[in-house]
Structure formats: C-alpha cells, structure tokens
C-alpha cells in the first residue's frame, strides 16, 4: 500500500510522540513520587533526631503518656515486638475530619528511655504530595502534548509549503502528453533539490519531445520520399499491363504485383495522414453536421458492403453538429464505415446509430471481444487477421494456391476465378493495413472526442462520444 509522503513523515512523528508521552508520564510520576518519598523520609529522620537530641534527655517515664496524648504525629509505644533499626513504611489512616483514608509515611525506630526499650513512631501525611504529583504530571503531560501537537501542525504546514514545488512538478508531469505539449515549463523553486529535479525533468522532457518530433518527421519524410519510387513502381506495372506477350502465369504475378502496389500505396498514404495528424496540419475547425457526412458516404460504402452481402442500416435520432476540421470528420466517418465492413462476416449487418452526443457503428464479426487496449494501436491486427482466416471459406483454397507458388513453376498454377480478373486476391484488401483504428483514435483525440469499443449480442460496437453542448 502506498502512502502520501506527508502522511508518512507525520505518521512517524505521531507514533514517536505517543511513545514518548506514554513512557514519559509514568516515569515522571514515579520519579517525582520517589523524590517526594525521600523528602518525607528525610523529614521523618529529622523529627527522630530532634526527638533523640532534645526530648529524650529530659523525658521521664510518666511523660510518655502525656507525650502520646499531646502529639498526633510522634508517638512512643512499648517495644513489642522489638525493632532493631529504622523502619520506613506506608500506611493509610482513617481521617475522621475528612472522613476518608489518607496515606501516611511512617518511621518506626527503637528508642531507650530510662533504660526501657520503646518504639518511636513518626508519621507524615502524604496527601499534599499526592496532589502535587498529580498536578505536576498533569501539567507536564499538557506541556508535552502541546509541544508535540504544535510540532505536528507546524511540520504539516511547513511540509506542505516545502513540498509545494514538488507537487506542482508532479502535477505537470502527470498531465504532460508528448504529442500535445510542445514546450515544458517548471517553476523556479527556493530549494536546491527541487530545482535540480525540475532541471532534470526539463532536460528529460525536452529530449523526449525532440526525439518524438524527430521520429514524427522521419515518418513523414520517409512516407513522402516513398511516394516517388511508388509512383515509378505503379507506372512500370501499368506499362507492363500493356504488353501483349505476357503468359497466363506472368499475368497472375503481375496482377498480384498490382494488388501489392495498391496496398503499399494505401499504407503509405495512411502513414502520411497519421503523421500529418500528429503535426497538426488540420487545425482549422468549423461546424460540421455528421449526419450529412454519413449520408454522403453511405452509398459508396453500400457498394463496398455488397461484396460481402452486408446490409447497412441507418438509425438517425439526432442531428449531430460538431466542431471539427471537415476533412478529418470525413476521414473519421469513412474509417468507421471501412472498419465495420472490413471485419464483417459474409451476410453480416452494420447498424449506424446517431444519437444524442454519440454515433455508433455496430457490426458482426468474430464472436469474441477484441482486446480493447491494443485495438487502437498502430499495426495491431492480430484479432482481425485470425478472424479473417476463420471466416472466409475460400481461404483454404487460396492457401493451397500460395503453397503452389513456392513449390511449383509459375505456369502450372491454376486460378480460381476466371470471369473476374484478379478476384482471388480479395483477401489482400480485406486484411487491412492496421492503421484505420489508429487514425480513428487520433482524430477523436484531436477533437477531444472519445472512442469506445464494446462487444454485445455478437455485435462489435464502436461508439464515438461527442461532448455535450459542443455547438
């Protein structure tokens, strides 16, 4: 279990204080009591010496009874049993005046009066001392308590003050997002350690921002630089298509090359788009009606969906006006469409719901939930890939063909679909490039929208949650 730094320090202080208080109070009590007892004993001894020195020489045997009658605290009694030395002890006597037992310190000592042995008894009331001790201990405890609580409160206040820059930096780092914050700023502090920490953090974040930007630029530049060779590649394939001397086997290779080029080009375009999104090239926003984007795109995607014989149903409950870059809103919606079709099953269905503050694309697909935390990462297509190979009936045949590719001479390969050229390469398209959901997420992030995924009633639901009162 983790604790807050302040609580940890103060907790230690508190435990220490309680221990000190609990041990100090009884120790103090007993120490004071012992001191007082010594004091009482000394007084008793003085009484005894005074008695021995001044009273005994003048004392007659008959005086003893008178003495005892006149003195309450010093008595002379017959020595039964006989004592050999000074004996101190405590004893309580009933005080008739106050009607309660009072503690006394008593000294008994043997004494010889006119050659007769007697016992000298002197007593001292401890009642005042007890009150004193109690008061002293109480006072002491109060002082100690005041001291410790003051100490505690002061430390708490000081610590809060002292750690303030630390908590500020912590707050800053917690909120820091490398793809959003372009600069870092930590406040100057009076404390050297915190300044050192802030300097280290600044250095660290600045370095990371630089590396991040470097990588982003690298991806953007790489994607841009790839466009020209891809153009050459595509042009050469287009040129090769026009050759009249191509054999059947060669034409199949060529068709595959063309499909691969198409995939490459799309992948590169998506990479470019992602890096443009990250470098915020679509900053300008305006009011966009999502309904009209969906309605504009639906016929295009209905055509796409018909390849899998999928039905697209549209359920409009609200007019969704949002603030967004119009290009991004279109890309977002089209990627949601594409995702719903791409991962759908044969004869599946797609439901698009426009509700208050949300738009949901639901589609059939594999009958299990996708791993959500990896879903929106780039090039995460494991779930979809597995799905693809399970769901397409022609896959086995296609795979068989692939195996032949590697083992047999090219011209021996027989193809499946004769009427529709290149038809067997369909799965090259349906497997996607693993960037669609990353693009959706990125655009949602840029617009401060949320994209949620869940799996219910065999439907994969992607819901875009729009902030309330956006317009």
């Amino acid at each position, binding site marked *: 279990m983790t604790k807050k730094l302040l609580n940890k320090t103060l907790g230690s202080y508190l435990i220490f204080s309680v221990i000190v208080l609990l041990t100090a109070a009884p120790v103090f009590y007993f120490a004071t009591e012992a001191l007082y007892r010594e004091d009482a004993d000394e007084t008793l001894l003085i009484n005894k010496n005074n008695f021995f020195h001044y009273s005994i020489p003048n004392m007659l045997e008959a005086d003893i009874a008178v003495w005892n009658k006149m003195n309450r605290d010093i008595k002379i009694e017959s020595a039964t049993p006989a004592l050999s030395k000074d004996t101190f002890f405590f004893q309580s006597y009933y005080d008739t005046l106050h009607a309660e037992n009072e503690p006394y310190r008593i000294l008994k000592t043997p004494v010889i009066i006119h050659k007769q042995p007697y016992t000298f008894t002197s007593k001292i009331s401890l009642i005042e001392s007890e009150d004193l001790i109690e008061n002293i201990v109480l006072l002491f405890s109060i002082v100690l308590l005041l001291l410790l609580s003051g100490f505690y409160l002061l430390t708490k206040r000081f610590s809060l003050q002292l750690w303030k820059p630390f908590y500020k930096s912590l707050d800053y780092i917690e909120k820091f997002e490398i793809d959003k914050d372009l600069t870092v700023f930590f406040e100057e502090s009076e404390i050297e350690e915190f300044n050192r920490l802030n300097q280290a953090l600044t250095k660290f974040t600045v370095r990371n921002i630089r590396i991040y930007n470097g990588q982003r630029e690298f991806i953007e530049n790489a994607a*841009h630089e790839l*466009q*020209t060779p*891809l*153009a*050459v*590649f*595509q*042009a*050469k*394939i*287009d*040129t090769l*298509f*026009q050759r009249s001397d*191509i054999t*059947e086997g060669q*034409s*199949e290779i*060529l*068709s595959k090359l*063309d*499909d691969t*080029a*198409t995939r490459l*080009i*799309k992948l590169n*375009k*998506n990479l470019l788009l992602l890096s*443009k999104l990250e470098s915020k*090239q679509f900053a300008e926003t305006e009011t966009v009606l999502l309904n009209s984007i969906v309605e504009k*795109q639906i016929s*295009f*995607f209905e*055509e*796409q969906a*018909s*390849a*899998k014989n999928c039905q697209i149903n549209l359920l409009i409950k609200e007019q969704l006006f949002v603030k967004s870059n119009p*290009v991004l809103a279109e890309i977002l919606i*089209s*990627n949601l*469409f*594409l995702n719903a*079709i*791409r991962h759908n099953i044969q004869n599946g269905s797609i439901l698009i719901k426009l509700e208050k503050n949300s738009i949901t694309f639901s589609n059939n697909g594999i009958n299990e939930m996708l791993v959500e935390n990896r879903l929106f990462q780039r090039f995460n297509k494991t779930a979809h890939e597995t799905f693809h190979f399970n769901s397409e009936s022609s896959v086995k045949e296609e795979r068989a063909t692939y195996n032949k590719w590697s083992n047999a001479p090219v011209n021996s390969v027989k*193809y499946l679909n*004769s*009427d*529709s*050229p*290149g*038809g067997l390469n*369909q799965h090259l*398209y*349906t497997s*996607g490039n693993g960037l669609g959901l990353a693009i959706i997420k990125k655009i949602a992030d840029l617009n401060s929208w949320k994209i949620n995924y869940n799996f219910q009633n065999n439907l994969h639901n992607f819901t875009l949650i729009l902030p309330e009162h956006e317009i």
Partner: protein
Amino acid sequence: MKILLCEDERDLAESIQSYLKSNDILCEIATDKKSALSKISAFEYDCVLLDLMLPDGHGFDILTELKAQQKSEGIIITSAVETLDSRLEGFQLGADDYLTKPFHLSELLVRIQALVRRKKFKGNNLIDFKEVEIDLNSKSVKVNNSYIDITKKELDLLLFLIGNHNKVLSKSAIAEHLSGDMADMLDNHDFVYAHIKNLKKKLHEAGSNDYIKTVYGLGYKWQND
C-alpha cells in the same frame, strides 16, 4: 497532341511517355527547371505536366513563368507532396488539375484528355467511338443514334475505358477512378465487375459491338477488333 512533362524521375517520365504515345500524345521530357523553361518559351504545348520538386528549382516557378508569358497551356501538377496549402497555391498560380503521386497512368491520361477538351474544344463536348457517342454536356450516351439509359458511374466508366482505348486497365485502376475522392477507402474492387457487366449489357442491347474485353488475370480493355 503535344505535351511537356517536367519530371526529374527519368524512369517515371519514360513510362508516362510510352503510355501516352500509343494514345497519340507526343510527350517531351524536361528533367529540370532550366530545360523546362527553355522548352516552354520555344514551343507550344497542349498541356504541361509539372512535378513540384525539381533539382534546380520549384515547379511553382515554372507555373509563374508560364502565366507571365501568357501561355494558354493546360497545367496538371503531378507531385508527391500533397498538403492543402500546396494544392491551394498551385490552383492560385493557375494550375488546372492536381494529381498526387503515385497515380495510375490511365488516370493521368483521362485527366489530360479532359483538360485539353476543356481548353481546346470549348462547346464541343462530344466524344465518339464508332457507333458509341457521348455528350458530356447532357451526360448522355447514344448508340447507333439512339439514347441508352446509363447511370453516372457507368458513364464515368465508359469515358475511362474509351479514353484508355487499347489499354489494359487493372481493376484497381478502374475502381480508384470510379471512387474519386473516396478511392483511399476502397477495400474491395469487386464492384468494378458489376459495373462492367451492366455497361457491357446495355451497350450490347443497343446494338454496339462488344468493345469491352476481359483480359484474363489482369483486367479489362476497350478494344476495337
């Protein structure tokens, strides 16, 4: 028809040149800004294809120069760079079209044809191929002088095929042409087959020859046999 191709990537330039040549377009190549400028001032072209990143300068400089010389050539920018800004700037400087690399040669060809048609044959928007006649203004098609019922997509497909006659067109090239702005969202090119089938049927029923050939394993071709 004569066009100037400003392109520093020689392989690409040669492919474009050879593709266009068999459709009666003569293509001269300039691989840098200097030679492009000297060619422009010496000859007349129907169209200029302009790459933006040239070794000795920017394509926009050539564009500015063309406008300064009050040349009437149609200009298509063919660039690997595509940002909203570069597009806007290109159009503002007087470009007529913007084609982002990579592109299909078939797409480039129909873009050139459309541009030259717009620039040169104002008012005359009739395209004919034997018994097939297309009126671009009214977006109608006549076969043997009688109108046929044709959808917008089918008309688009017909224009693309005739524009690229005798060329083998891959399904992806046709699909991308038909999808326009949404081409990047294509996941499946099977719909091309349906459109081809329908177009073929309509033309055939109207008494046209069967010009649309299926090229086994590759795609389709408009061919006069």
